[in-house]
């Protein structure tokens, strides 16, 4: 059941990301896969979050242009770091979460940028892209996390 739910979440995210978000200038910066990985890393076990980031990254790679494995690589690193951090610190304050998402987004982009350069591919990364993605993901991630958390709490107490 858990596996089915996770697969369903990945499918829904893929559809929303590729068919809806990318049509809009600002919303296209939102990386729902990354947000999902950060959410899992903050709330579930490290092994689960690493596994999920690896799988969702590969799904994202297969629908993206470039080398398969880059998104999986960056997301695995991000998920590992976030889950390690969350196991040592209490990350509950909204501003801290927003900052964490922003930093994770930047790290994700920088890892992909590095990998692209390593494999001799062009990389369009600029400070503008990095800051826009970090900001938009930070704000939207915070909102989505709050909504998801409320639904989860409601379900637990129902």
């Amino acid at each position, binding site marked *: 059941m858990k596996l089915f739910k996770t697969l369903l979440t990945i499918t829904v995210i893929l559809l929303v990301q590729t068919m809806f978000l990318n049509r809009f200038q600002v919303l296209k910066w939102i990386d729902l896969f990354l947000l999902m990985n950060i959410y899992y890393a903050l709330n579930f076990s490290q092994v689960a979050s690493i596994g999920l980031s690896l799988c969702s990254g590969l799904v994202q790679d297969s629908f*993206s242009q470039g*080398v398969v494995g880059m998104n999986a690589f960056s997301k695995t690193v991000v998920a590992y770091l976030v889950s390690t951090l969350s196991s040592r610190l209490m990350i509950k304050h909204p501003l801290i979460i927003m900052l964490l998402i922003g930093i994770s987004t930047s790290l994700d982009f920088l890892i992909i940028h590095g990998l692209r350069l390593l494999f001799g591919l062009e990389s369009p990364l600029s400070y503008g892209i990095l800051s826009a993605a970090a900001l938009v993901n930070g704000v939207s991630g915070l909102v989505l996390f709050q909504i998801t958390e409320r639904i989860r709490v409601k379900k637990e107490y129902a």
Partner: protein
Amino acid sequence: MEQVVLSPRTSLGIVVVSLFVLLALMSYQVTDPETGQTVLASVAFRLFSPFQLVVSEAFGGVAGVFRNYIGLVGANKENVKLKRELDELKIQLEAQSQQNRENERLRRILQFRERLPYRAIAGEIIGRDPKPAMSETATANRGGRHGIKREMPVVTPEGVIGITILTGPFTSKIQLITDASSSIGAMIQSSRTSGILSGTGNGRCVLKFLPINVTVQKGEAIVTSGQDGIFPEGLPVGRVVRTVTESEFYRSAEVEPYQDFSSVREVIFLSPVPGVVAVKPSEPVPTQSK
């Protein structure tokens, strides 16, 4: 929720192994342009070849020093001789490239007469890249079963969209011309000065390698040059937004595509079919659907 808890060391081990596997997977897909081998093979070679070098140097070091000393005696004479040979070769090479350019020009004239006609296959964009900040692709609802193949031009009546880079039975992936790793042949419509149109990854393109003496006006139309062997000549691409002097020999022009790719829905795949519709320069793209 039940949680699997592992020690930090085990988790780190899993991550490191996963990352190595992913790196190997990525390396396997990329070909090193220098060697023509996969990056995995190249990296392995580069990693292990220094050991071989060290061993070889250790054994051959003494002998090498001795040989070098003896070799220096005749080095000066040889140097003069080699310089002369090099000059002769340079002249030969220049003549050869002149001949190649001539051949290329004649071949293009010949090809122009026997230009491939194109069949139009209409399709629809059904999805966009899940990581649009780093790459710009789109998925269309036409694939191998509809006659779509790799490296087919994709256009709309407004202009060029991109090329197909991957095909499934019912879908295909299109690399947009604005993608950072996209390069097509394009030219300034008025002066017919051609260059290479590369994507910038931020919704625009850059027409590179324009001779410095060519004047490029803001708003000038850019069309495909047909020199990439994929796009027919004369398809509209976009207009010049600004020019940048790259070096003392070249300048580049930033190009804004005629259409906003995020809102494009219907596209046309151009499939070469001999003897149906001839596409001539500056003629509109055939837009009849299948």
